[in-house]
């Protein structure tokens, strides 16, 4: 074993010279392969960001900033806003329709 290793060390400069060309060729193929694998379909956006750069301060900007800050809070904001708006508009328009003088009591379920 020791003798084999010694023989190998003596031959190593010539071995490295012989491996030089196939070694670089392999490296080129591997690097080119990686570069080709990186192509194909364009990568999809990892994170969506609302563009607030040209926005004036106001409700739109506030919503966009909430969206950019934390999507969980944004989702909660969506649900709460829709529920509140739905309730307020529901009761509000209900009252307005009542002012038209229509009878809005319980209906008979006739087919």
């Amino acid at each position: 074993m020791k003798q084999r290793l010694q023989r190998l060390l003596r031959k190593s400069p010539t071995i490295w010279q012989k491996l030089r060309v196939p070694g670089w060729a392999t490296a080129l193929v591997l690097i080119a392969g990686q570069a080709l694998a990186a192509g194909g379909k364009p990568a999809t956006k990892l994170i969506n960001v609302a563009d607030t750069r040209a926005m004036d301060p106001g409700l739109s900007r506030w919503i966009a900033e909430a969206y950019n800050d934390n999507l969980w809070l944004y989702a909660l904001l969506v649900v709460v806003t829709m529920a509140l708006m739905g309730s307020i508009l529901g009761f509000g328009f209900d009252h307005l329709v009542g002012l038209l003088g229509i009878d809005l009591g319980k209906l008979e379920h006739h087919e």
Partner: protein
Amino acid sequence: MDMFQVYLPIAGIQFNILLLLLIGFTVGVCGGFFGIGGAWIVTPALNIFGFPMPYAIGTDLAHMGGKSIVSTIRHGKFGNVDVRLAVAMIIGTTTGMELGARLVMHLEQLGLAESVIRKIYVVFLFLIGSYVLYDYLSHIFRQRKAAESGAAVYTGETFAQKLQRVRIPPMIHFKSSKITCSLWLPVGVGFVTGVVASVLGVGGGFIRMPALIYLIGCPTLVAVGTDLFEVMITGAYGAFTYGIKGRVDLLAAMWMLVGAAVGAQMGTVAVKYVRGYSIRLLFAVTIFIACSSVVMKQLKYQTASSVLILSAGIVISGVIIGWLVQGIIKERASRQARSWAAFKKED
């Protein structure tokens, strides 16, 4: 028209406020009248005017939850919402939707998802529309026959009544629907409709509404109101899940909700002046138009399909508002006639 343009920061586009109000109003009228969410009108309508599709779906779900609250409040005061029945259906629907989603994943792994789901969607819409239309025509035929012979209209025992007689405890009385049946009936029907809705990728209002009428035996108006209660819950859930994914434009949803709130009130009040079978007839027509739109989309006529569905929505809203106005005029005229008659009597 530029003053009505608004920048929607989340969808990243400029949009016309009047268009958002019109889309919201149209779907509000149809939703309040039929008891459906109306995603099949809103999503293609938003998409053809520039909304990216995922944002169109998420924004629609968000506004649908809010709009359904408006309609449910009014239907509740009319006595059309059976909360107990809705809760039983929701239990079944959510379980069914979960199973439906897994079925779609399995079909996707087999490479069959797209082709199978598309065909099922068209067939389903056609079957629902055909059955509801057949039911309406049978009813008209029975009425004419009864009028000719002078006898009462004979309906026989319906399929829903046969299902109600199945005695699997617990037996529950549903007050607003005036039916007594096993709890497993609405849970089971909710489960099946949930699976179908999930596989088809829809909210399911247009499946649940006829299911409530023909499988559970609800009166039409109660089916409309109860379905809206469910749409309210599923809309809120959909708004949350799409919100987390960042696919809800809250500003657009708010504008649509303002239009939808007005429309939903009008559509809901219109049911007061229309008999149940007339609602079913217009529902059948709407389903056939939706079916045609889906077929056109699959034949790659995307724009024509979206234009058809939006135009149909506007025309159907017009019909419903026409019935509403007619009904209000008749009601006020009869009230005036009664108060005039009472006044003359006192004299």
